[in-house]
Structure formats: structure tokens, C-alpha cells
């Protein structure tokens, strides 16, 4: 069974905070109400609630993505970083 992790599109997120309510084990809110999400794979026991969080996000900012090996392609700065 492939592992998944919770990822966010920060441009879509408006800080509603429903994800943090539903999944406090993996999501905490920063001082401005925006979610800080655990980067590791979602433990099997929490997958159900994680899927729920993805569905109820009012701005569809959350997604569950499969983790592929050590690093998801394209997410790391060791790939092709962009400067200003």
C-alpha cells in the first residue's frame, strides 16, 4: 500500500482552519491562523480523517499525494530552485 502525505497549495489557503480542527495530530495553526502541516506520511489510522480534511477544505487547498521514495519530485530545492 502506497503512503500518502498531506500537501497544501498555499495560494489557495485562506486560513479557515478546518483542517487543524479535524486533524490536530498533523496540523497546527501558526500565529496568523494558517496551517503548518506535518511533512511525513499520514499514519494509516489517520488516513480517514485526512481524506475528510481534504474534502471539507472550503478552498480545496489540501490534497493527499503519494510519497515516492525520499522526496516528491519537484517539491525540493535540490531540484530546480527558482530565485527572484
Amino acid at each position: 500500500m502506497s503512503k500518502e502525505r498531506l500537501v497544501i497549495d498555499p495560494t489557495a489557503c485562506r486560513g479557515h482552519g478546518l483542517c487543524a480542527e479535524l486533524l490536530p495530530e498533523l496540523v497546527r495553526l501558526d500565529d496568523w491562523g494558517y496551517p503548518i502541516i506535518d511533512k511525513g506520511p499520514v499514519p494509516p489510522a489517520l488516513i480517514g480523517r485526512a481524506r475528510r480534511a481534504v474534502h471539507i477544505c472550503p478552498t480545496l487547498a489540501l490534497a493527499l499525494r503519494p510519497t515516492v521514495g525520499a522526496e516528491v519530485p519537484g517539491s525540493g530545492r535540490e531540484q530546480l530552485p527558482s530565485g527572484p
Partner: protein
Amino acid sequence: MSPIRTEALEARTAAAGMSGALRVLAGPAGPGPEPLEAHLHRLGDLPVLGSHLIEVTARARLRGRGGAGFPTSKKLAAVAAAASWGRSPVVIGNGSESEPLSSKDELLLRRRPHLVLDGLELAARAVASSEIYLVVSQSYPEALRAVRQALKERSRERLGDPVRLLSGRPGFVSGEETALISRIEGRGGRPRARPPLVVERGLGGHPTLVQNVETLAQLALLARFGPEWYAEAGTPDEPGTTLVTLAGAVARPGVFETAFGTPLKALLDAGGADTSSRALLVGGYFGGWLSTGALGGRGYSRSELAELDVSPGAGVLMVLSGSACGLRAGATAVRWLAQQSSRQCGPCTFGLPAIANALLQLSEPGRTDDDALERVRRWCSDVEGRGACHHPDGAVRLARSTLRVFSEELGRHRDGSCVAEAAPDPGMATARSAP
């Protein structure tokens, strides 16, 4: 010395007016553009390398000059590979120069537009692209004029594929590659999250190569004279030359070309840097501070600067006046970065101003307190990595660097005193519009 170094090459490089570290800036003095005929007469025709350019850039170990310093051959190869799946690639020359302390790209575009256009052509051929754009900052009217004229000359001579020239939007984030693409697409000009990488899906969903204009200029020479020649300047690990903009408390501000590995002290002396200066901002607002006391005999190279936790970035060296307060200068810069947020992401929109305000408080003598310090540190950790682009990361880097390099100043501020006993002058003023 490589056997490739023949008398013919000797003669050609001499005819090109190049010697030592003088390469992209070789050629006629004078503020205006070198015309096409003179350019071709001086340097020779543009060689047709096609995808062979990728190997040439790999052997030369060319890295991008836009700030990230990414190996050019890897980027070219990635776009070429993505294009091999059947989606035609796009090439974009980035002359946005949104780092406010930098003026190297302006100089290149205004005085050597054909070097940049040669590089664009070479890159396009390397990835088999016929859709080519060049973005030049809208605050560079002379450079835009020079490029327009150069494009007309090339079109008259039927040299190269057509290039679409666009003016770049203002703002620090506008030169970021996804923001650039968004602008060309006629959308908001704001960054987006990744994945996908632009080399796979960029402009209009096509594989897109974005290269800084100085990288393109280096390509134009590298293609003509080869990787062995390229490595004659610089260090074994970091061959070649690079453009540096010297700014701040210096007698001779401006752009100059230097070989990688040149001792920093020599660079500063050549520019007439304030000898009482205790700190340098390396890489501009997207960079970090260096204490002049820690310089030693270090050379200007990625590896040596990395020892001091900084990187060349877009080639800016800003000398902080000896009478200025580094905390104040850093705080002012972070505040400016906060204002430059494209305001798409919560952590950047709210976190950067919070960090900036805390730093500004810390930069006022007598208002330093450990709570403010703790808050800055916590906010930096919280904000880092949580934007769609690396803008908040750059601000966090500068904030942390400010607190680390000027930790002595923090101590003085706690006692109510400051090195800048008079009205603080951040010493960050530049010839261009200051933040």
C-alpha cells in the same frame, strides 16, 4: 594547458578584446549598444551547435547567473528531455533584474544586446525551441531600446528566430520564473506553487527554459571559444567569470567582471570600499551578511562564500557604511521584502511584516528585549518553506543573517547604545529607485 589552446584561439580572443577576466564586458566602451556588424566582426559568427551545447555547458560547468546558480546543462537537458515527449519547448531570457541593488543585467542588455540574443538563440537551438521571449524590466528604457534595435538588425540579416520582447512588471517577485511566465501569459504575474516544475510544464503548459541574461551572454562566448578557454579564468571547481554589482559605501559603485576566486578584499579595494565598514551584504536582498573581519583571504566563489553561510546570488556586493547600524539596515531590508510579497500566501503576507516589525523594534537602541528576539526566531521557523515561492525564505534568511552577524550590535542595543550614534543611515541607497 589544453592542446585545444591554439594560436588561432589566442588570436581570436585577442581580436575579441578579451583578456584575463574581461569577457562579456570586452568590446567598445561607451554607453550604447554594440551594433551587430561590430559584434560579429569582433567575436565571429555564432556557431551552430544544436543540442551539442548541452555537453559544452556541462564541460564548462556553467551555472546560472540569476541568483540560484543552478547548473545550466542540467536545466537545458531537463527541458530537452521534456520536449522529447512531444510538447514544443519555450525559451525565456530573464532580464527582469528585480534585485534592486543589481544593475549588471541592465548594463549587458544596453551595451551588449547581441551577446544576450546570441545566447538566447543558442539555448533555443539546444532544446529545439522556436518560441523565444525576452523580458526586460520596464524601468530600463535604454536597454529596451537597445534590444529592439538589435532585434531589427538581426531580422534584417535574417539571423536567428524571432524573439518576442516584453517589458517586465515592477516588483521584487516579478522576476521569479513562474511569475515571469504568468506575466507573459497575460495573467497576474504572480508566482505559483510547484509541482509542476517549469522545465516540465511552464508557459502554456509547455516545457520552459528560463535563463538570466548574463547566463545567456556567457553562453554566447562559451559556444564560440569552448569550455577549455572558459576554464582559463576562475578556479578549477568554479571556472569562468561573473558580473558583480558593487554598491553601498564605495567610491566606485557599479558593475565589473571578475573571475571566480578573486579575493574579496581585492574586489572591495578596487571599488574603493569604506575601510571602516564592518559588514557586506552578499547577494543583495535575497542574500545574507558577511562580517568583513571574517573575510580573511577568501575569494569570491560559491564554495568559499558558503563557508560564511552566504552565496553570490545575483552578484551584488553591498558595503555597509562603517557608521551605519547593521541591525537597522537589515530590518529595513526585511521590511521592504515584506512589502514586496505578492500576498498570495498567508505565512508570507502576515509573517514577513511581523518579522520585520520585530526586527525594527530590535534595531532601536534600548528597545531590545528577549521576547522580541524569541518571537522573530519562532516566526522565522514557522514561515520558512510555507510559501508558493521562495520569497519568504529569502526574507527569513536575511532576518536570521542580520541577527547572527550583528549579534554584538544587539548586545549594544540592549545597553541602550548603537554604533550609529548619529541618526542611523542604513547606507543602502542605490542609484536606482531605493526601497
